[in-house]
């Protein structure tokens, strides 16, 4: 009975799926883009560019019309053999630095690019200086004789416990 059911199921599945596999249209899906290599480069470049009419989206993901126009331009420039830098310069010449999501390194952005690392370096240096100064200022607590005696008494009383670093 079980074997019969299994056979029937297999036949049914084959019948249902068979036409799909025999169909003249069925096959490997073709990429939407005409040239996947160009397209991959387009995505890489447009992820670094800003969609100018969106709230805060990259040129790669936006569905806005201007974004589609600009992607078309960039695709054409890639096919013309332009380098990434040339393509970005092309857009910056027309729309300004605003179109770049990676701000160019120039005097007005030195603070932006080097600031965090300068901050880190400064903080580490400040930390070292502070620790040195602190070590000389803070006196380690001294145990008075009476305190030491009561501490020893307590330790003798309680069972041993592992030292707790947590």
């Amino acid at each position, binding site marked *: 009975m079980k074997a019969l059911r299994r056979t029937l199921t297999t036949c049914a599945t084959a019948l249902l799926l068979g036409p799909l596999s025999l169909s003249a249209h069925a096959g490997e899906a073709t990429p939407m883009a005409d040239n996947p290599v160009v397209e991959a480069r387009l995505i890489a470049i447009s992820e670094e560019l800003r969609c100018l*009419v969106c709230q805060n989206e990259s040129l790669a993901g936006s569905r806005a019309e201007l974004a589609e126009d600009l992607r078309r331009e960039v695709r054409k420039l890639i096919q013309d053999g332009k380098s990434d830098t040339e393509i970005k310069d092309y857009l910056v010449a*027309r729309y*300004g630095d605003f179109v770049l999501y990676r701000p160019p390194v120039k005097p007005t952005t030195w603070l932006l690019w080097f600031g965090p690392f300068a901050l880190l370096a400064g903080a580490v240096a400040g930390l070292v200086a502070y620790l040195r100064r602190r070590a000389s200022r803070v006196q380690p607590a001294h145990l008075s004789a009476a305190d030491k005696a009561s501490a020893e008494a307590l330790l003798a009383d309680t069972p041993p416990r592992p030292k707790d670093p947590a």
Partner: protein
Amino acid sequence: MKRFLIPLGLFLVLVVFLAIGLNRDPHEVPSPLVGKPAPAFSLEKLAEPGKTFSPADMQGQVWLLNVWASWCVSCRAEHPLLVAFSRQGGLPIVGLNYKEVRGDGGIDAKKLSPADEASLTRQRAGAWLSQHGDPYTLSVLDMDGRVGIDYGVYGVPETYLIDKKGVIRFKQIGPITPDALEKKILPLARQLAAES
């Protein structure tokens, strides 16, 4: 113990910047083309099919290039101002009709042949100008928006003030308001007209 005041000091600086920021528009993109020659192009005229126009044709004059389209709602706001201004005979205004067919969300331009798109563009643009008035010395058709990209257009309407040597001297983003016309465009235009 002055160093304990450092956090407060830094914070106050931040507040000042935030306060200034409240008066700025984070979406406005100023044009890097101001002070540079107007990009060259050769586009067909609206009124004369087959005849083209290029910015070089306007050498020796101070003029305005106004980007417009019939589907643009804000253009309707500035249009009466442009029409009145053109009647006063101030500056010649050249219209750049931008993506008349492709920019209209309701039309699927991919289904049209280039010839059909051209004639539909002329029809729609012409009809709109007839209805709302034509302030333009002439209008050219930028059907795919490529010239717009060369000019850094990212929205409609936008207007460029170009001097006698063909250099862009000012860009108005958005509709021209009476205020912008009085305070920014006209004084600069007069100054440019006085230049040789």
